[in-house]
């Protein structure tokens, strides 16, 4: 557009009026633009996370379609009660996280810290229970590989694929939980120090999105891994 367009540049300088806001990065024009950018960035990141898990889900659907008998009998070896309790725990942590964001937006520091800690604890319980389940599988030689056994499994040869997917999917999920656990610790520290205000609590909000996403993944993993056709079996 050269000289023509250049001459039409207004000399009104945008972007200095909010220079006193310590949380506004220099390259943004205003706090709104910055917040919007963070939010879009986070959502785009969750998109990549969705596709990341998508590959494992695809493998799951393909093999479940091919080897239904193996998948049913292998899935019946998981403990539904533990799975359901863990799902409940994770949903509770999603609630506490939502409330943490809620109180952050109201600028209530005490409640923010309280709910972040509650989220941390619930996440910790989830990981603990998961660890217990892994241990149980280890004891029963249900880890794929040379020493794999699946006592009483129908079509044990293919059942191994189920357990590969079980560990692949829950392992990837758990690693996301562990990363979230680490970030939560930092957030609790920052919140306690009073870094967040009703005007600026973007990190809490963004972490909330991440935490809910991890919850959603589990919402799918629970029925797919624990609840394949338990017809004729007691609920618990």
């Amino acid at each position: 557009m050269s000289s023509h367009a250049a001459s039409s540049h207004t000399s009104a300088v945008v972007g200095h009026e909010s220079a006193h806001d310590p949380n506004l990065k220099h390259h943004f024009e205003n706090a709104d633009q910055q917040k919007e950018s963070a939010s879009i960035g986070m959502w785009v990141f969750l998109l990549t996370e969705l596709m990341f898990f998508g590959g494992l889900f695809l493998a799951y659907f393909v093999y479940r379609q091919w080897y239904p008998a193996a998948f049913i009998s292998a899935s019946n070896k998981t403990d539904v009660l533990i799975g359901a309790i863990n799902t409940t725990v994770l949903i509770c942590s999603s609630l506490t996280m939502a409330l943490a964001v809620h109180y952050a937006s109201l600028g209530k520091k005490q409640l923010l810290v309280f709910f972040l800690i509650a989220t941390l604890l619930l996440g910790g319980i989830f990981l603990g229970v998961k660890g217990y389940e892994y241990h149980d599988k280890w004891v029963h030689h249900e880890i794929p590989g040379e020493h794999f056994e699946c006592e009483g499994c129908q079509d044990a040869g293919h059942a191994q694929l189920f357990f590969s997917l079980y560990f692949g999917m829950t392992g990837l999920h758990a690693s996301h939980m562990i990363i979230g656990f680490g970030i939560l610790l930092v957030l609790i520290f920052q919140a306690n120090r009073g870094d967040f205000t009703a005007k600026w609590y973007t990190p809490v909000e963004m972490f909330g999105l991440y935490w809910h996403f991890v919850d959603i993944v589990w919402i799918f993993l629970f029925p797919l891994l624990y609840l394949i056709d338990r017809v004729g079996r007691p609920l618990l």
Partner: protein
Amino acid sequence: MIAATVPVKEEKNYINAEHGLKSWLLTQDHKRIALLYLLSVTVFFIVGGLFAALIRLELTTPAGDLLDSNTYNKVFTAHGVVMIFFFLIPSIPAILGNFLLPLMIGAKDLAFPRINLLSWYVYMLGGTLGVVVLATGGVDTGWTFYTPLSTTYSNGYVVLTAMAAFVAGFSSILTGLNFIVTVHRMRAPGLTWFRLPLFVWAHYATSVIMILGTPVIAVTLFMLMLERGLHIGFFDPAYGGDPVLFQHLFWFYSHPAVYIMILPSMGVISEVVSTFCSKKPFGYTFIAFSSVAIAVFGFLVWGHHLYVSSQSAYAGMVFSILTYILAIPSAIKIFNWAATMYKGQVRLTAPMLYALGFIGLFTVGGLTGLFLAAMGLDVHVTDTYFVVAHFHYVMVGGAIMGYMAGLHYWWPKITGRMYSQLWAKVACCLVFVGFNLTFFPQFVLGYLGMPRRYHVYPVEFQVLNVLSSGGAAVLGLGYLIPGVYFLWSLKYGAKAGDNPWGATTLEWQTSSPPPTANFEVTPVVTTEVYDYSNTEVPHIV
């Protein structure tokens, strides 16, 4: 060309704003990060090129006399992995895109400067892992990592190589994420979507592929690593696993990845052709939407790699027809570029020569893609040198020609210096001739039936292979010369003005090299982006 209303106060620019290694390694300036990428990507280009030289040397004779089979396999694997994951994918987006995107949309920086820097470090980490693999003995799976060869039978460092590609993928995701947010939220006032330069459209489309495709290859490599390293099998036929599932997952990313390489090049060509014809690109909206169409439909054609792999014949048909439909947006671009030249004021500068070279070679690359999309013909030519020739026409004749065009076009902006037009044109011609000599005989070889990845081959294929190797030498020379005159220009090149080519996009309105903050004042856009009515046409030959 920076207008009188915005005088340049001082000579400070992004290069001399700060000094010292630390100021570069910890920089958050997108322009400096682009230069970090330029440096590291060039190193990988040279490494990948050396492997290519070894391949062509070996293939001058039918017998395996230079390298043994195992080494040859490691060499072509290294060539593929390095060129694709460490050169082609980051080349234009991470260097030119990084440098220009904020400038073109009148922003001070990308939305997340720290993530931008992180992406370079992640890239370097992946690159380091790759170098470790090369240094400790390499890997022989081919860049496609097909199972069960990679998971059970390969004798190289599969896990480490997969890790390198996995890590490099995250760098690509971070770049794509940054671009998307930047284009959505950082545009200058008045810069509406249909005023965006086509380069920006192309990069937006590329970013969509990066963030939606790359995670799938990441999880595929994750499964591959679990299977190879921990025997947690996902694809192993010994347990009823399906190697074809791996191929689906692999190509879900790797076919769109071709568009990660070619779309940014197309963006470059649109800019270069417009500038050197001093004319708005013919069919601006068609070019813009064809980029988006390629990004979306590019995700629906991957199965054309699997016609003979025991994929269902029905699915094969669907993939075939979608592939043909996907060819249309590329054809539209080519016709529009040619039409842009009609009644333009054409100046055959070095970047323009590269751009015209791109159009010619990409046309051939694209058309031969149609051969491979035809199921009955693909059965004969897939996995032969026909495929090798085809994708080199697209990636070298297309992506790298576009990269060279862009580098020559924006070099004055990036460095503030001019290079020798004469030498640049000589190099461009060498590249064009050398390239065709290298890869055209491979179409013939492929139809004759020479399979790819062959270390030794029947004697009747020798003549064509020797031609190809000879061409590769010319091509190599063509790529060396720019290295020399670019370096020369840094010290001795004439000072380039702010807008040496007579271009209209925003990056040419700031000084060369631009200041750290890009613009003294945030530009406000009031007209179309390609409005040449008030631009002088400098005569450069």
